[in-house]
């Protein structure tokens, strides 16, 4: 009987002032967490495969770039006109570095990079380009697609909107 009453109360609670207040606090906390602390985001696209799969869910931390500046190797979310649609890429070089692709391999400052996260690779070729001041160079982990179909390049550091939680 106690169990029945408890279940009924859990599923169909009496709408009292205390209950409304509790519901309001839960809703406010959820809104605060999912809006400012760990923001949910769906991945649409294959440019970060196999690290992040098309269609999977990630949470990103929008406050972390203010505490820890982005570094080479970090996966970051890049803001466009706002935060509803963003790009997800990996930082491969910082301001002042030169970036180049030879036979599918990334060269930073003329040194071939070890990239354990890259599992698909095709013959990308790109002439050397220098990263401008206040900018970082971003590339996706999926290098198996033709170079023309992969969006990559340098962008302003201020566009970095967060780091994925995992």
């Amino acid at each position, binding site marked *: 009987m106690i169990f029945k009453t408890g279940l009924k109360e859990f599923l169909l609670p009496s709408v*009292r*002032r205390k209950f409304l207040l509790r519901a309001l606090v839960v809703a406010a906390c959820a809104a605060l967490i999912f809006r400012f602390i760990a923001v949910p985001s769906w991945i*649409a696209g294959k440019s970060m495969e196999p690290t992040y799969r098309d269609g999977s869910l990630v949470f990103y931390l929008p406050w972390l770039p203010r505490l820890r500046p982005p570094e080479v190797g970090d996966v970051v979310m890049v803001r*466009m*006109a706002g935060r509803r649609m963003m790009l997800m890429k990996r930082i491969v070089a910082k301001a002042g570095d030169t970036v180049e692709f030879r036979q599918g391999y990334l060269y930073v400052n003329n040194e071939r990079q070890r990239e354990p996260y890259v599992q698909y690779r095709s013959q990308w070729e790109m002439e050397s380009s220098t990263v401008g001041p206040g900018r970082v160079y971003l590339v996706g982990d999926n290098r198996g697609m033709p170079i023309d179909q992969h969006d990559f390049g340098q962008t302003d550091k201020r566009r970095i909107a967060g780091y994925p939680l995992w």
Partner: protein
Amino acid sequence: MKSLNINWKTGVFTAVILTAAVFFLVRHFTTGEEAAIRRKLSALEDNISRSPGDGNITLSLKNQRLTPLFANPCRIKIPKYNVDMETTPREIAAQVFRLHSRASRVDLRFYDISITLTGEKKAEIIATVNVQGRAPEGGRFSETEEAFIEVVKEEDEWKFASFEQIEILER
């Protein structure tokens, strides 16, 4: 179920506050120049998008509704594809017609729209544009870019005067 344990004064006060909030929100999003521009963006989304069920008559109507949305000339600049040209509303409608005949589904959406009125008859929009689609043979395409759009007011109607892709990643 027990009734709500709130006195009538609190109830009336809450109802008045909620009604006022809804009224101001609805007014904010449905009147004024910014709302008129948002409606033009929605019209652009509706008339460029096509669902697999859209027949020739629907597509033809959509095409007819596109022409009055653009100023003449309209500038289009897409650095990614080395496009920088001035074109006419008719030419834009013809290009969309070609897109509709090549794709069984097209979905155009604007996100994170910010509108700035720069004059009585001029405004600037910054938005993220997402186009997704499917070719009849099943191949999918998807493109997301940030865009800078200029609109001008002609004969009491807002019209799109230029579209420019903002390069976020520069090789």
